[in-house]
């Protein structure tokens, strides 16, 4: 079943994520992908994550299709103007890529080339609109395409906004993304399930599948780092304590992730597990969560 079919079938979805590195070495990434191949519906491939220059998302997404894994091609507006973005999408299609996750992208100052010119010709919303336009057979300028793609566009939402204005704005933008053609949402990592539930209640009416984000907690330090530096992520103190107290960090990490996945099963249409290199633990997480 393709990712689009799974989505439309209403089954509980599982997606994972790989991030290409700096250089041409893709061996271990392919190995990681192989481990989870049979347990996930699709794998996201990040686009120069955190504005750090890396191997491109399109190339690695293509490698995944070769392995029989369905990629979700992440595309940001940071580095390319509308010409390059449209062209790359057409290229992706011919390379067998069917799913696109449209993002605005981090600012270059966050990465390792802080003085690069930020492009942001299109943002996540206008990117989605453009994908829709390509799907309808035209480019942004209204020129007809010869050979038309049929991408499944998705988008992201950050449910953990830390104030009312930020949350209202996230939800308004989510609506705009839906209007612009987003067919599914993947979220920022969820740790505070109660808060997430409140968010879900507010967006239920949108009737667009939401895939809840899960980041494997590797250590208490990582939790604290995220609390401080990642907007919208809040690891509750008891979870941090669990990580501090444990002797077997991997085991505990899996246990916590599984617990979250279990609860998310009743709240949304899937989970997006970001293992950050611990891909081999994903099967265990899913096992423990009875998936």
């Amino acid at each position, binding site marked *: 079943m393709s990712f689009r079919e799974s989505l439309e079938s209403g089954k509980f979805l599982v997606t994972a994520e790989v991030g290409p590195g700096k250089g041409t070495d893709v061996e271990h990434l392919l190995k990681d992908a192989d481990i989870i191949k049979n347990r996930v519906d699709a794998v996201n491939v990040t686009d120069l994550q955190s504005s750090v220059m890396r191997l491109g998302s399109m190339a690695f997404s293509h490698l995944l299709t070769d392995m029989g894994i369905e990629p979700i091609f992440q595309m940001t507006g940071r580095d390319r103007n509308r010409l390059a973005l449209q062209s790359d999408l057409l290229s992706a299609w011919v390379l067998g890529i069917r799913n696109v996750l449209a993002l605005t992208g981090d600012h270059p100052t966050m990465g390792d080339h802080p003085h690069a010119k930020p492009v942001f010709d299109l943002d996540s919303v206008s990117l989605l609109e453009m994908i829709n336009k390509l799907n309808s057979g035209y480019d942004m300028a209204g020129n007809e395409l010869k050979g038309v793609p049929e991408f499944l566009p998705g988008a992201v939402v950050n449910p953990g906004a830390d104030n009312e*204005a930020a949350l209202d704005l996230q939800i308004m933008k989510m609506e705009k993304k839906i209007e612009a053609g987003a067919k599914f949402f993947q979220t920022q990592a969820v740790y505070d399930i109660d808060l997430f539930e409140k968010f879900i209640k507010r967006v239920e009416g949108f009737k667009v599948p939401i895939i809840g984000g899960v980041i494997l907690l590797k250590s208490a330090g990582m939790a604290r780092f995220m609390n401080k530096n990642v907007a919208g992520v809040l690891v509750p103190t008891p979870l941090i304590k669990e990580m501090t107290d444990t002797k077997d960090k991997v085991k505990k990490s899996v246990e916590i992730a599984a617990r979250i996945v279990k609860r998310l099963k009743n709240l949304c249409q899937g989970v997006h597990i970001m293992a950050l290199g611990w891909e081999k633990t994903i099967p265990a997480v899913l096992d423990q969560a009875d998936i």
Partner: protein
Amino acid sequence: MIIVEPKSFEEIEQMTKGCGRLLVLGCETCSAMCFAGGQRQVAEIASSIRMSKKMSQDQTEVLDDTVARQCELEFLDHVKDKVAACNTVLSLSCGAGVQTMAKMFPDRRILPAVNTKFIGRATKRGEWMEMCMACGDCILERTAGICPVTRCAKGLLNGPCGGATGGICEVSKDQPCVWQEIYHALKRLNMLHYLKQKPQVKDWPVHPDKVVRKDLREVGAT
């Protein structure tokens, strides 16, 4: 107003080495307001360069003067004799002023003494904020008079990126998330629905841009 900031004296000193007879020329509009191009700054720089020249046995003279705005040929006309008497002009004006000088006096070297930063305003003494990028397509009517093109680090037009923490931008950590500001302002004006308007895509101008007003040109021609 155009916001400029003075270049360091080191840079100016390097630039003016062997420049010959020099005119230090102030610009008493935007640049003076930024404490970078008024009579006071002119006096300071001229004195400093005179000392620098003396130190390196350079006998050439340093003159100084100011004009109201260096971006107007008419004002520059008032200093044409002084410029003619010099080899080089150190202009304390913004990029527009320096280039107007270069156009007016094509056989003189025109050196910039300031860095031109942006269009903005003084927020407090000694602090200026960028307010407008001159994108050429104003949308302030939709955003309660707060420009996301300029004041959002990513120039987003359809809402915030989600990176703000505690209302503060994740890129410019001393600035509020401008989209949250817009949100509050629109809410105050009972105009929150403006945020839900059709997605925006900006059409970028071609540089160098030009404004041509036919109505004015026709009057001028008579």
